[in-house]
């Protein structure tokens, strides 16, 4: 695996290609934005060139007697007019156009990402490398896109200005361009070295910085506060922090020496050598010439300093583009990822009375050697209630993931009414299941919408109220100031409602009632409920699903009490089916299930 990774790193796309890719993406979202930004950059460069070179040159010429006072006033007035237009444009661009356009780009980029997120295989989210890369790609997508545009327009305009300045300088004096060419070349060369060291320094600091961040979190996050007060773990954290600071210190020393030579070369050549050198040269020229005066000296000296600094500044954009390219690489990796399971896969419509059959199913997680599920074969008949029990890590949750097609089996197949589940329309297939996960999520929407998991429409009222009642939430909902319209969580609404753990779980359960699922999957749904609430819950569940609508139910639990009323119990152990049958059959077997049950039941009987 590490070999594969190394190969991938070498294959990084080059930075020009990456920047063009990003630029194309923005151009597709908003061609006007690209034009507007280029125009703005151009205006900025134009102003600087103009003020520092031509304006001054014209003034000096005028004073030295080539034009009358009136002429020069007209000249100043005309250029004030030009700048009036430029400033009008910039006021509009920065205060109105840019914020709106940024917003639009953010939106479109996010929509692209979100669409992709929903297509990427779930397994990727469990792969830490992929996930880290992707989270960065997602959280920074739009700001990076905008920076890319800024950088590219800076570089292009700088190149044009550079060409122009060289030509201009040559027209004045054939040696003058050297005073631009030399510092620019030096900077390009030394920057490469300096960047290398800076990057190495940064990388060497990463573990220490991460550790400091981590200590920070542990000191300030609420969830750690009790443990920190009740133990001396703070001493461990203090030590960790000091170790990290020592590491940072050592790096400062190491890299200071390494950077020194290239830094000093760059600074000396770019600033005193070029600038004072240029002045020495120009003053010599002026003194030895008959026609040039002190005014010309100022114009030339200033033109050189300013054009050099301007170009050097622009070179920073090249640096930034190179750095940004790494990010774009991640973004492209993500966008170009080809999912194994096609989320939009069309196929057969799903049947009314589902019968699932696992045929010799084995499954191994990516990067692991030991299979989690080994050669499983069993059938879940339609309208039956199946309990899946077993130790922690026996493979219960994995089995559910395979059933829902978050993963495909490594070996064997899963059949729905005799047809491999891969043949069905995936979106429709997934909608067959109403699921309550152990790690269910609550959203910062209204309670109604949390139940419906969709935009609320008046025709949903009945279904929603029914689901709330079935999960015994009605009483709680009625006690809220805005009833079922109350917004949950305080993510962005100060008046959001925070319910208790058990109540939130009921919300999650009510979703199953509100959905049109054919099969209900409950992953340890009662862990936050107290005994009475739990009892009510199972009563409701069994009434609705086994007696009422007659839909299939698959339940996972540590607690065996629920297995008693199941139509079938599957006991998983070490990735295999250890025992299978009704509660009575398994008890009669006096095997593993019997042991488990006795352990739990002994205190109740």
């Amino acid at each position: 695996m590490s070999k594969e990774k190394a190969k991938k790193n070498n294959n990084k796309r080059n930075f020009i290609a990456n920047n063009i890719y990003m630029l194309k993406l923005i151009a597709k979202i908003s061609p006007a934005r690209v034009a507007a930004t280029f125009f703005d950059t151009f205006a900025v460069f134009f102003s600087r060139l103009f003020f520092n070179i031509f304006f001054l040159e014209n003034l000096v010429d005028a004073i030295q007697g080539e034009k009358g006072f009136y002429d020069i006033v007209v000249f100043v007035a005309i250029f004030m007019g030009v700048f009036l237009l430029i400033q009008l444009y910039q006021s509009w661009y920065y205060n109105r156009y840019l914020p709106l356009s940024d917003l639009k780009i953010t939106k479109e980029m996010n929509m692209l990402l979100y669409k992709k997120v929903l297509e990427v295989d779930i397994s990727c989210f469990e792969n830490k490398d992929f996930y880290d890369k992707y989270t960065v790609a997602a959280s920074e997508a739009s700001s990076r896109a905008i920076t890319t545009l800024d950088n590219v327009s800076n570089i292009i305009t700088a190149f044009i200005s550079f060409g122009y300045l060289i030509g201009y300088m040559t027209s004045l004096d054939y040696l003058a361009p050297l005073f631009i060419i030399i510092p620019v070349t030096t900077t390009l060369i030394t920057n490469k070295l300096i960047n290398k060291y800076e990057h190495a320094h940064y990388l060497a600091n990463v573990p220490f910085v991460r550790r400091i961040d981590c200590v920070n979190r542990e000191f300030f996050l609420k969830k750690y506060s009790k443990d920190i007060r009740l133990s001396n773990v703070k001493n461990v954290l203090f030590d960790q922090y000091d170790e990290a600071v020592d590491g940072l210190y050592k790096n400062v020393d190491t890299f200071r020496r390494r950077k020194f030579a290239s830094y000093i070369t760059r600074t000396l050549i770019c600033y005193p050598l070029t600038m004072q050198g240029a002045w020495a040269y120009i003053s010599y020229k002026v003194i030895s010439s008959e026609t040039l005066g002190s005014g010309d000296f100022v114009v030339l000296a200033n033109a050189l300093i300013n054009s050099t600094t301007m170009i050097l500044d622009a070179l920073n954009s090249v640096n930034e583009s190179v750095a940004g390219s790494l990010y774009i690489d991640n973004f492209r990796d993500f966008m170009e990822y080809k999912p194994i399971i096609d989320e939009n896969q069309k196929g057969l419509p799903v049947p009314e009375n589902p019968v699932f059959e696992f045929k010799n199913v084995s499954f191994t997680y990516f990067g692991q050697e030991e299979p989690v599920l080994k050669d499983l074969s069993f059938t879940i008949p339609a309208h039956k209630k199946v309990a899946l029990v077993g130790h922690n890590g026996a493979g219960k949750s994995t089995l559910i993931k395979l059933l829902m097609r978050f993963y495909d089996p490594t070996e064997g197949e899963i059949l729905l009414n005799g047809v491999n589940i891969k043949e069905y329309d995936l979106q429709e297939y997934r909608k067959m299941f109403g699921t309550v996960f152990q790690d269910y999520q609550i959203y910062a929407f209204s309670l109604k919408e949390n139940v419906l998991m969709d935009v609320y429409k008046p025709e949903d009222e009945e279904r929603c109220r029914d689901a709330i009642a079935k999960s015994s939430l009605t009483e709680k909902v009625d006690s809220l100031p805005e009833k079922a319209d109350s917004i949950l969580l305080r993510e962005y609404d100060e008046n959001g409602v925070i319910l208790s753990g058990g109540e939130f779980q009921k919300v999650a359960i009510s979703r199953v009632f509100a959905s049109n699922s054919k099969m209900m999957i409950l992953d340890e749904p009662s862990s936050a409920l107290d005994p009475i609430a739990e009892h009510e819950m199972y009563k409701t569940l069994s009434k609705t699903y086994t007696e009422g609508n007659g839909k299939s139910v698959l339940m996972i639990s540590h607690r065996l009490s629920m297995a008693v009323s199941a139509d079938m119990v599957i006991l998983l152990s070490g990735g295999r089916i250890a025992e299978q049958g009704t509660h009575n059959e398994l008890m009669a077997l006096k095997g593993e299930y019997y042991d488990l049950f006795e352990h739990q039941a002994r205190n109740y009987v």
Partner: protein
Amino acid sequence: MKKDKVKKEKGSFKKTVNNNVYILKTIRKYSKWFIPLTALEATTHSIIIFLQHFWLLKVLIDCIQNKAPYTEILNYIVFVFVLVVIKYTIQYFYANYFKSKEAEKVYRGMRMTVYRKAVEIDIEKYDDPEFYNECVWSMNECAGQLEKTRFNIWRLFWNVTNILTTGVFIAVYNVWGLAFVALSFALNFWGNKKYNAHNYELDRELNPKYRKLDYMSRVFYLKDYVKELRLSNVRNKLSADYNETYGEISETVKKHSKWLMIWSFLTNYVFSVLLINGIYIVFLLYLAYKGEVTAGAVATLFLASRRLDDNLRGLSYTIPQFGQNSKYIEKMRTFLELTPDIVSPEKCAKIENGIGGFTLTNVSFAYPGNEQDTLKNISIDIKPGEKIAIVGHNGAGKTTLVNLLLRLYDPSEGEIIYAGNDIKNYDVEQYRSLFGVAFQDFQIFAGTVFDNIKMDVGETDTERFEEANRKSGFEEKLTSLADGGDTYLTREFGDGVELSGGEAQKLALSRIFYKDSKCIIMDEPSSALDPISEAHLNDTILNYAEGRTIIFISHRLSTTRVADRIFYMENGEIVESGSHDELMDLNGKYAYMFNLQAEEYRKGNEQS
């Protein structure tokens, strides 16, 4: 109303100065030279640049006009050249050595102070989300804020020195220039103030909307939500909300942008370009045509006035930054000046060896901001070595009761006695160290297994360590780890090992056994364990409990059955108490709850 605002602003000026002085003093505590050298660096940098770009220019012009020999010109140039070389060499050491090292020193000092405070403040402060976000969580940015302070100081000195040098330079040539620049500065200052006021309004309206947008983005890209997004239509709702918020933001921007455009145009064009580069230039030209100034002087004056103008505007940007910084410093001061209510008394009662009992007399407790009491008038007696179970519905007050026993909170009314003394009379740390606690939401820290079980630094008692892991059942996992006790846990940094829920829970129990406390508190310790592990845990705790006080909270009444005494809580009160058998005979609420749970098991047993 308007008057009020003015008054407030005046007060805030004093506050700004006050807060910035405070932070400078704090920095000086950790590094004497950090700020003075930063200011010195900015000043010399400014002077050198001035010499290099303006003074030298003027001198050379004079030379040229006076037809001085070229060697004189070269002398000046070489003089400046040498100065600049020395300057850049020193700057290198400042930036790459002094600044990095001293900054780290200051950060460390600051962070340690803040950490110590974080450990000390009442846990109650964490319950108020607004206060928590404002004053506790924001402290993790204290290092970044110090860097801002340094940079502000640098900029202030840089701007001021630039203004002084360039100002004197202009005044020497042509005093009128100063008038133009001063006018431009005053107008800009006024314009910026107007602009900022509109911008502030805009930000204020946009902030909550951006918060909403951020939330939507998080839901889309965090892995916690990925399964549900695929199984439901919740994405429709998210997209709908996203689009709605997007529309609102656009409208808000449009509403405010008119004034922003006007003020930005006025400050950037009318008050600066037009005034300095237009009107002032025409004035200079007029003087030149009258023969009062030379062409060289016009050019240098023009350049100098642009520089002065730039720096005055820079200053009008730098000064509000101190105000911004002050807001954060204010938070920091509030945080550091918090006085915890839960503190050790001056004269602490001695905690005797051996175990004591607890007596709670009429204890009531309400969480801050809550009107209703979470605990009401509780009076109980826990004898040394007793095994106590607390059961009841969610929200009945079980965890709160335990929090009070641990002195994480103090009761609003009533008192808690341990071994004959009110627990407020003991040293807080010493008192808390009596307990071994496993919370429902215990945390694994980013550190080694040793760190996580010892929860302290220092030597590991190997025998005790092994014994603890054997008892908790964590031994099995530990032997599978390549580096044993030195294995790093969590993926917070580096390639640590991530424990499963059950494994982590066993580790939490190892902590208790290693600590070997007199009093053990367990809040739902077995909720993530499978039945066999749970049974194993029960047996271990019972065997271990000999001679120790145990208090445990559980939903599973099978676990609590073995307790000497069971407290059944409801709405903050203890409504039933007694042994399992007594409570079953009472046939009250406990019996009802127990029977409900047992029902399915009994049914299962009868069936078989």
